[in-house]
C-alpha cells in the first residue's frame, strides 16, 4: 500500500436512513491493526534493532557520525537504482536494462564533460539517456512482448553502445562533477542529497498526483484502468521512462563519486537494487508498495555491509546474511498479509476468501 495518511480505524457506522441498504461496517479489531502495523513498518523496526545490535558488536566505530555518513552514502547509490526498479515493479514491469543505461549515461556525461562543456550540460546530456532508453523499452514492450525479455535485449545493446561511445576505455578525471559526487554538505555526502531529493519527489508523485495514482492502478490491474477509459499504454511508457531515468541518474552519480565512468555495466548494482526492493516487501505483481520502504531496504543492506567490513568478516558472509534476511522478510510479509486477509474476511464465503488470498500476493 502506498504510504498515505494513517488508515481510519473503527469509524462509527453512519445511522442507516430508513429503507436504505444496511452496509457492513468495516471494523478494525486490534489484532488486525497490530498485524498491519507489523507488515507495513516491520522493516523499519528491524533496521533500528540492527543499528542497536551492530553499535554494540562493531564498537566503537560503527556508531559514529562518520560511519553513518558512509552508510548513508552507500545506501544512497543503491537507493537511486532501487527507486528505478521500484517504479518499474509498481507499474507491473521488471526492467533489467538498468545497468546498461547507467553505463551509457555515465559515459555520455563523461565524454561531454571532457570535451569542455559546462557541468550542468554534461549532467543533462547523461540524464537525457534515461527517458530515451525508457521510451524505446516501452514502445517495444507495448507491441506485446515480455518486458523481461525486451529489457535483457536492450541491456545487450546498451552494453555494446557504451563500449562504442567510450572506445572501450573508461573516461577518467571527472573531478568537475564533485558537486554531486565527492563533495559533502554539512558533512553529509552529496549523493545522499541526490537520493533524498529523488525519493521525496518520487513519493509525492506516486501518492499525490493523478499520474502517480494512475500508474499504480495500471500496475495493480491494467485491464481495469483500460476499462475505465484511461490509456494504460501511456502509463506503461511513463513507468519505463522513470526506471531508466533513475538508472541514468545513478550512473552519473557513481561516475561523479568515483571520478571515472566505466563502460562495463555493473550487474552487482542491479542485484543490490532488486534486493532492496524485495526487502521492502513490494510484491512483484505490481500496483502496491512504498518508496520510503525501499529506501529502508537499501539502508539495511548497507548497514549489514558496513558492520561486517568494520569487523573484518569475510565479504561472502555479508551476501549470505543479506540473502537469509531477504528470505525471512519475504516469508514474514507473506504470512502477515495472509493473516490480515484472514482476519478481515472472517464472515466471507469460502470463494471470496480464496480470491482475497490471491490478491494479497
Amino acid at each position, binding site marked *: 500500500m502506498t504510504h498515505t495518511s494513517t488508515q481510519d480505524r473503527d469509524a462509527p457506522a453512519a445511522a442507516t436512513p430508513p429503507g436504505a441498504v444496511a452496509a457492513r461496517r468495516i471494523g478494525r479489531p486490534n489484532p488486525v491493526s497490530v498485524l498491519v502495523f507489523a507488515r507495513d513498518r516491520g522493516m523499519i523496526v528491524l533496521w533500528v534493532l540492527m543499528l542497536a545490535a551492530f553499535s554494540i558488536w562493531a564498537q566503537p566505530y560503527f556508531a559514529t557520525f562518520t560511519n553513518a555518513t558512509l552508510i548513508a552514502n552507500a545506501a544512497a547509490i543503491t537507493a537511486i537504482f532501487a527507486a528505478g526498479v521500484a517504479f518499474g515493479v509498481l507499474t507491473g514491469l521488471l526492467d533489467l536494462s538498468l545497468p546498461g543505461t547507467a553505463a551509457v549515461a555515465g559515459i555520455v556525461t563523461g565524454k561531454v564533460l571532457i570535451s569542455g562543456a559546462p557541468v550542468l550540460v554534461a549532467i543533462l546530456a547523461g540524464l537525457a539517456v534515461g527517458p530515451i532508453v525508457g521510451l524505446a523499452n516501452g514502445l517495444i514492450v507495448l507491441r506485446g512482448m515480455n518486458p523481461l525479455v525486451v529489457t535483457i535485449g536492450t541491456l545487450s545493446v546498451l552494453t555494446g553502445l557504451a*563500449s562504442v561511445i567510450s572506445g572501450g576505455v573508461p573516461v577518467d578525471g571527472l573531478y568537475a562533477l564533485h558537486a554531486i559526487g565527492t563533495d559533502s554538505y554539512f558533512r553529509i555526502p552529496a549523493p545522499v542529497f541526490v537520493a533524498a531529493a529523488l525519493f521525496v519527489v518520487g513519493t509525492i508523485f506516486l501518492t499525490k498526483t493523478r499520474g502517480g495514482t494512475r500508474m499504480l492502478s495500471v500496475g495493480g490491474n491494467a485491464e481495469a484502468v483500460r476499462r475505465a477509459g484511461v490509456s494504460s499504454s501511456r502509463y506503461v511508457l511513463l513507468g519505463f521512462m522513470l526506471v531508466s531515468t533513475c538508472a541514468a541518474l545513478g550512473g552519473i552519480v557513481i561516475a561523479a563519486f568515483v571520478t571515472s565512468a566505466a563502460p562495463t555495466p555493473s550487474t552487482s548494482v542491479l542485484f543490490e537494487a532488486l534486493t532492496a526492493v524485495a526487502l521492502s516487501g513490494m510484491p512483484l505483481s505490481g500496483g502496491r508498495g512504498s518508496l520510503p520502504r525501499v529506501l529502508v531496504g537499501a539502508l539495511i543492506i548497507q548497514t549489514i555491509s558496513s558492520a561486517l567490513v*568494520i569487523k573484518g568478516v569475510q*565479504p561472502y558472509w555479508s551476501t549470505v546474511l543479506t540473502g537469509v534476511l531477504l528470505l525471512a522478510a519475504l516469508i514474514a510479509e507473506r504470512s502477515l498479509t495472509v493473516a490480515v486477509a484472514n482476519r478481515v474476511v472472517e464472515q466471507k464465503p469460502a470463494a471470496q476468501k480464496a480470491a482475497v488470498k490471491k490478491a494479497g500476493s
Partner: protein
Amino acid sequence: MPRTHVLTCALALLATTGLAACGSSDDSTGTGASATKVTIGFSPYNQSAPALVGLAKGVEALAESKGASTLIADPNNDPTKQAQQIRTWIELGQVDAVWVLALNPTAIKSLIPLAQSKGVGLLATGTPADYGQSATAAGLSYSVIDYAAYGTAIGTALAECAKERLGGSAKALFLANPAGSTGKAQQDEAIKAALTAGAPGSTIVATVDNKNDRLESQKGTLTAIQANSDLNAAIGVSDESTMGPVTAFTQAGKDPAKSCIVGAGGSDEALAAVKSGKVYADVAIQFSEDMAQSVDELVRFAADPKAEGKQLLTPFKTVKK
C-alpha cells in the same frame, strides 16, 4: 500450400548452412592459412575489454612485420566456445601456431593431442600442471604471471615508500582480490613478506575485499579509514583497487602525495597518477614485451612444430615517478 511449405523449409536449411559456413570464418580476420605464408591464431578472453582489443591489434601488426598473418577469435568469455574455435582452426588447417589466453585450462587441455598430431604449436597461459602435463613438451609452451614475484614487487615498493615518506612505519590498508582469484595466495603472501623485510616498522592494519570493482574499493577504503584513523598507506593489486583508494584518501582529507599508495595494473590513469605523485609506484604488466615474446614463440613454432617448448614469464615493471 504444402508445396510452398516444403520450399520454405528447404530455403531455411540452405540459409542456415550458408550462415554456418560464413559464421566459422566470421570469428577470424585475415586470410586462411596458405602454403606460403605463416598464419598464427590469437584467442584472448574476449574482444570487448579495451586492453584485449589493443592487444589483438598489436599482435596482428607485430606478426605482419615478421611476415605472418593472424586470425583472431572472440570467445566472448565462454570457455567452451574458445575451445571450439581453436579446434576448428586446427582441424581445417587454418593456423600454424596458436596463442591462447585460456578462460579455462581444462577446456583447452583436450585440444593438446589434436594440436600435436596436426603439428600446430600451442602457447597457453598458465603452467604445465594446469593442463595436466608434467612439463613443457615439443610444440607446447606456457606463459604465466609469476604471482609471487608480482607480489614481492608491490610489497617492496610499499616498503620503499614507507622509508621515504613515512619514516619507515606505514599503517597500510590491503585491498585484496576476492577469494578464489588466480594466484591470490602466492601474491598476498609475497606482498606481506616483502613489506616486512623491507620496512619492519610497517604493518597491514586492515584488509578489505576489492571485489574487482572501483566503487567497492573506494567505499571499502573510506570505511577502513574511519575505523583506523591513522591509516597512511594502501596496497592495490589491480587498476580498480589502486585508483579507488586514491579518491577515498582525498575524500577523507588525507593527501595521497604524502601517503603511500602503491598499486598494480598499469592503466593509463594509474601511470598518470604515479607521475603526479598520488600513487607512489605502480607494478605494471609490460603488455608489449609480453606480446613480443609470445609472438616470437609462435613464429618459432610455425617454423618448427617440434621445437622444444618453454615456460615464459609475463614481464612486469615497477613504475615510479
